[in-house]
Every structure is written in structure tokens, then in C-alpha cells.
């Protein structure tokens, strides 16, 4: 869980923002892919980019990377306007597209050397750079292998290594952990996290826990519009409409119900016997979002009976995501 958000697009000074989008739109013919999108990514910040398929994540990434241009609005990277000074800006961007851009016939070392040279890394600095990214992405074992022989996980890591070459100021990662096994995901996260300490990272992903783990801010988009941008905890507070409190207590059912309904802030109850012990009752309460309701419940129950467990559930990122993209969280079952 990140610290509470201190930045919003409106108050963040342009100097601190390494990537800035100002009311960017993208249209193909009459079809609008991105509509009036504005947000910033600051130095030392990892921003997660969430959205369902077709929301416009990849298009946004491509506009920042300079692969496509915005129809209207302004994209700036490290202060350079992508529509006029993109060669300057491109030098400061490390980009891992959705599909790693690999040449199958080259071996890993030749490929990385090629990218380093094409990116304009000074010739003398190339061996050290290759060593750095190879170690960071754990590619030593396949360093001399041809890329077409590599597994999907290794291909993804070669793509990540390629993006890290030349120590760019901005790292754009389009679903970087797709196809990796859990151990590799952990390693990649560490790489991204350590890189994000001093650079700006924009990371698009479908894996929601990943966002909570490594991103300081999360941007949620759908149908090309920015729905929310805040820290994971800030988003959580914003959608705390109905909180759930679950508790387990040894008590008779009817008096417990009456006692709980008398507590201010409790809206609805669901009482059933605990699975493992029928003397113990499990209660699920729907309560108001404000603080202190669970404490009042605890006092009410503990003063008369034995209270074994009490837990306040908060909306998970998954619920938040569904809330913003317009699906009722309840329809998917409460998390």
C-alpha cells in the first residue's frame, strides 16, 4: 500500500513531471480511441496503468513512446514535445511494447548490443551497459542463445533488458510480467521497483495485486477516458461505500442480532453457524463507511459474549477497478 497521494495532475508542477499528457486525444477516422486524457508521471514514481482490454492503454503508451502521434493535445517527455522534438525525447525513453520487439535470429548478446548501439549508447560504455542489464534481468544463462530458442519468460526479460539499456529517464512497460512464472514475476518486480526509485515508470498491467505492490499511483482508464488517478489507498477510500465487517462469537443468534442492529452504523446482518463449530456464530455485517463502527460492534458483542474474531474488510483493488469501469462489484461476488 503506497503513501497517500500527494500529487494530482492539476497541482503537480511541470518541472517535476517527466511524462506529461495534456488533454490528449487520438482518433482513427471517426473512431475516438483516447479522449481528453491528462496525467503526469513524476521522477521517482511508478504509476500503474489499469484498464480493460481495448481501453486505450497500449495506444497511450505508444503515443508517449512516439510510435504514434496524438490527434490533439500535447505529450511531453522530459520537457520535450513528442510532436516536434521526439528524437530528443526518444533518447530518454525505454519502451517495452506489449509484444517484446525481438529479432529471433540474433542471439541475446548480439540483440542487446544492437539495441544499445541504435539507442546511441557510447561505444565504450556498451560492455558495461550490457553487463548491467544482463545481471538485472538474470539473462546470464541465455546470453549466447539465439532468441528464437528462448522461452516466453526469457523473451519477456530480454525485452525488459532492452528497455533498460542506456538508463532512460522514463520507462514505459506494457504488461511486463505477462507470461512469467511466479519467481520471475517477483524478480521483474524488484527490477522495476529499484529502477523506479530514481526514474519515472509507467506500467500497464492486468494483474491488480502487482499494482498495489509496486505502484505509488494508479491510473484507471476505460473507453479512452481517465476515470481515476490516485494512490491505491486513496482509491480505496474513494469507493468505500459499503464496508463489510465479519465477526465470530459464541452467542445465541437472536439476542446477538438485536444487539448488533442496535449499534449505530450497522445496516444489515447475515448470521450463520461457523463451519467448524456450531456453537460459534459467523456474522457478516454491512456497515457505514465511517471509522469506528467496528469498534462499536466489538464493544457491544464483547460486553455480553465471547468475541473470537472481528475483521473489517476493505474494498480490494479488484473491486475498485470494477467500480470504476462500470461493473457492479457485487455481480462478481464480494472479494
Amino acid at each position: 500500500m503506497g503513501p497517500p497521494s500527494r500529487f494530482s495532475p492539476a497541482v503537480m508542477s511541470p518541472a517535476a513531471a517527466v511524462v506529461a499528457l495534456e488533454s490528449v486525444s487520438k482518433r482513427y477516422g471517426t473512431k475516438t480511441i483516447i479522449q481528453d486524457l491528462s496525467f503526469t508521471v513524476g521522477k521517482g514514481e511508478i504509476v500503474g496503468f489499469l484498464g480493460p482490454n481495448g481501453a486505450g492503454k497500449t495506444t497511450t503508451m505508444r503515443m508517449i513512446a512516439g510510435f504514434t502521434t496524438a490527434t490533439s493535445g500535447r505529450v511531453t517527455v522530459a520537457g520535450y514535445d513528442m510532436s516536434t522534438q521526439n528524437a530528443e525525447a526518444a533518447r530518454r525513453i525505454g519502451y517495452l511494447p506489449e509484444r517484446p520487439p525481438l529479432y529471433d535470429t540474433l542471439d541475446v548478446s548480439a540483440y542487446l548490443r544492437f539495441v544499445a548501439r541504435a539507442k546511441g549508447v557510447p561505444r565504450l560504455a556498451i560492455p558495461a551497459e550490457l553487463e548491467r542489464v544482463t545481471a538485472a534481468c538474470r539473462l546470464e544463462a541465455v546470453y549466447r542463445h539465439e532468441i528464437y530458442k528462448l522461452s516466453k519468460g526469457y523473451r519477456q526479460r530480454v525485452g525488459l533488458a532492452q528497455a533498460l539499456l542506456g538508463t532512460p529517464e522514463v520507462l514505459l512497460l506494457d504488461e511486463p510480467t505477462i507470461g512469467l512464472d511466479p519467481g520471475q514475476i517477483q524478480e521483474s518486480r524488484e527490477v522495476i521497483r529499484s529502477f523506479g526509485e530514481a526514474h519515472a515508470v509507467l506500467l500497464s498491467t492486468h494483474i491488480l495485486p502487482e499494482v498495489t505492490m509496486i505502484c505509488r499511483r494508479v491510473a484507471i482508464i476505460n473507453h479512452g477516458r481517465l476515470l481515476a488517478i490516485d494512490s491505491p489507498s486513496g482509491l480505496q477510500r474513494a469507493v468505500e461505500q459499503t464496508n463489510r465487517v465479519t465477526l465470530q462469537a459464541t452467542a445465541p443468534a437472536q439476542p446477538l442480532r438485536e444487539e448488533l442492529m442496535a449499534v449505530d452504523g450497522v445496516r444489515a446482518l447475515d448470521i450463520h453457524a461457523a463451519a467448524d463449530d456450531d456453537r460459534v456464530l459467523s456474522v457478516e455485517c454491512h456497515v457505514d463507511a465511517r471509522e469506528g463502527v467496528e469498534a462499536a460492534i466489538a464493544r457491544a458483542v464483547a460486553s455480553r459474549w465471547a468475541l473470537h474474531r472481528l475483521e473489517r474488510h476493505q474494498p480490494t483493488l479488484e473491486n475498485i477497478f470494477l467500480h470504476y469501469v462500470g461493473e457492479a462489484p457485487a455481480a462478481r461476488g464480494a472479494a
Partner: protein
Amino acid sequence: MSGMLAVCQKELSTYFRSPIAYFVVAVFMVGTGYFFSYNTFLTGNATMAETFQNMGILLLLVIPAVSMRLFSGEYGAGTMELLQTLSSRGRSSSASTSERSPSCC
């Protein structure tokens, strides 16, 4: 500029990693050899002028055969995204080539 050299070098080394380059060179040599011997020994002209002329025509066929897959290959492998976002690219405002795949977003 160094970026362009890097791309060029990579392309050349890729050609010689597969039999394509050798095959194309062989076809070109056989063709040129045929025109040389035809002009020199059968016609009896002690001049290279016509051989060079025919080499040019032969190259008209050979060069597209080698290069026609380059762009589609880059798009197919997804590496166009890498090349176009490298600092080596001199593209300033035109984005026509990059907008060939609008469907994925």
C-alpha cells in the same frame, strides 16, 4: 547516424546468418557470368560495357527480392515499434507508417 549504422550492420549480419544472402549472391553471379561470357566469347566484343548494363537490369530483380520483406518483417515481428521509438529515427511529424495497426489499443 550511429543508429543507422547499427541497423545496417544488423541487417547484413542477419542475411549472412541464413542461406538467403549466399543464394542471392549465387544467382547474381551466375546471371552476370552468363552475360559476360555471352558478350565476350559469343559476340566477340572485348568490352565490359554491355555486361555492366545487364548487371543493372539483373539488380532490378535481385534487390527487391532481398529487400521486399524488410518492412513487413519488422511489422510482423513487432520490432517496428522498437525501431520507430529509437533515437535513430529522424521522423518529425509524419506518422503515416506507424498507424497501420490501429486495432490494438
